[in-house]
């Protein structure tokens, strides 16, 4: 009897928490389907369903441009990061060389230092190169390694049994061939996790686009556009809600496709780190 009560109590608590976790998005979704006027009232179930709000967001705001910019930023950042960070992670995890430990410490430091510390000198550098106002300052550095991704990938590559690498080397593979032929296929989950983190980071990033593109609305991303939404439309909460939902959907969709890789990535950085 007592045991059943505890079981009920635990599940009730879990369900109550679920409701609290879902409610903010639930209300947002309902609001996004209301009329402009109803969104300003305290009735939360749409009186009529205004699915056209989602069309209006694209018609009345530069949503399409924000979306395109965000996809470009997140996509390019992810591809660039993989090109530069996978080899670096391999060298740190699987090769022995002088200065390896020092480089690893520097990379961990880079992960820990708040981005605001280097903001001003970096901004001046990009301004010198005439690239402020564009997304290049956020994308180009990814061609030169991303500290967090290198660290995550290194942790993953350490888990691959050394015998596979030795076998490849005995067969006469050079290190690059070993990486491409043997390690990459085995490291797919780790690479997927790093790619997802990078994509989400860029998709969600507000500080970077604010810093570099706020002067040029052509290059705004979703985060930046969303934060300045009601300037154009005086607090049209139904449209703001629709735009907010649209920003969240790709993240949720990607998560469901790659849930496993993702959770694995989270625990890899934390527990093993």
């Amino acid at each position, binding site marked *: 009897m007592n045991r059943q009560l505890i079981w009920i109590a635990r599940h009730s608590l*879990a369900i109550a*928490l*679920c409701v609290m*976790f879902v*409610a*903010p998005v639930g*209300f947002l979704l309902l609001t996004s389907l209301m009329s402009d006027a109803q969104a*300003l*009232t305290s009735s939360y179930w749409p009186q009529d369903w205004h699915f056209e709000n989602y069309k209006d967001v694209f018609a009345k705001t530069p949503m399409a441009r924000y979306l395109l910019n965000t996809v470009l930023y997140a996509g390019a950042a992810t591809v660039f990061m993989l*090109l530069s*960070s996978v*080899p670096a992670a391999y*060298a*740190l*995890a699987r090769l*022995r060389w002088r200065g390896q*430990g020092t*480089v*690893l410490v520097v990379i*961990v*430091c880079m992960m*820990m*230092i*708040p981005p*605001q*510390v*280097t*903001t*001003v*000198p*970096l*901004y001046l550098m990009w301004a010198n190169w005439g690239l402020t106002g564009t997304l290049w300052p956020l994308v180009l550095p990814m*061609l*030169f*390694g991303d*500290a967090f991704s290198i660290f995550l990938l290194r942790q993953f590559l*350490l888990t691959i049994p050394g015998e596979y*690498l*030795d076998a490849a080397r005995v067969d006469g593979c050079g*290190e*690059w061939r070993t990486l491409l032929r043997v390690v990459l296929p085995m490291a797919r989950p780790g690479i997927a996790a790093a790619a997802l983190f990078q994509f*989400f980071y860029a998709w*969600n990033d*507000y500080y970077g*686009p604010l810093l570099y593109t*706020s002067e040029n*609305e052509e290059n705004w991303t*979703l*985060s930046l556009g969303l*934060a*300045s939404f*009601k*300037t154009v439309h005086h607090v049209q909460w139904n449209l703001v809600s629709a735009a907010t939902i649209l*920003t969240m959907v790709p*993240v949720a969709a990607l*998560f469901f496709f790659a849930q496993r890789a993702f*959770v694995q990535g*989270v625990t890899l950085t*934390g*527990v093993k780190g």
Partner: protein
Amino acid sequence: MHHKLRHGLTVASFMAPATVGIVVFFVYPLLSAVYFSFTKFDLLTTPEWVGLRNYRHMFEDSFLGTATRNTLWFVAVMVPARMLGGLGSAMLLTTLKRGSGLYRTIFYLPALAPPVAATLAFVYLLKPGVGPVNTALGHLGVDAPLWFNSPGWSKPSLVLLCLWGVGDVMVLYLAALLDVPTAHLEAASLDGANAWQRFRHVTLPHISPVVVFTAVIGVITTLQYFTQAAVAASAASGQATTGAGISSTFGYPEGSTFTYPLWLYVVGFRYGALGYANALAVVLFVVAFAVSLLLLRRTINPERAS
């Protein structure tokens, strides 16, 4: 010798891009920030050496006092709140057998929500007057606060927002809790240990690396707290201007959400006091570095690669 050279070239080919990145995008700007912190300049002038003046100015900058106090408040409240929330929900999940996968997904998902979107959702949810939360509180006969529009409640509102996204911390605790050997817990039970004693003497020592990790990462991310504070202030004030001018609403209401990094941003990019902004950056660096040393000492074990 030839072999050694070849090996060196191989390593260089793997590490070259990242090395350039470390130097150009980290070491160089970090050293520049230190140098610039002793100078005075803006976007149009060249740096002029002023010694320690920027650092002395900090003590006369009353707004910096407000911003620092706000950031310390966030560190003192948000970090423990997220750790307890994450640990609590993870422990709940480990006791549920049926449906725990579904619960885990639902608990975790909000952590992925884009911060700007999540902040807007909470500003809407907690809107004074017609927001769902205050409507519900009104039905219960509770005198509802003004949340993001009240200087006393704006910070607690942001704490609610950060608790909504507690899933990332929870996943870490969940992995650690599942690693606690059940045999030890059972042995403790047989010895007559109650639930608290089992937690205190068996579970906690096992998960302590994750506790340290979440504490240090929590402090460091909270020291950078920027986006949610900026967006909540502009959305709640209802007078947001464009992205470039958004700083005019920073801190709303009454400076209660003005954080240290927000002030750094405003000093540098709105007032153009780039020397002083760099001095603020150097102080932030020293604090963040000191905190991360706690973790670094643990992480960098002399682990040798194959």
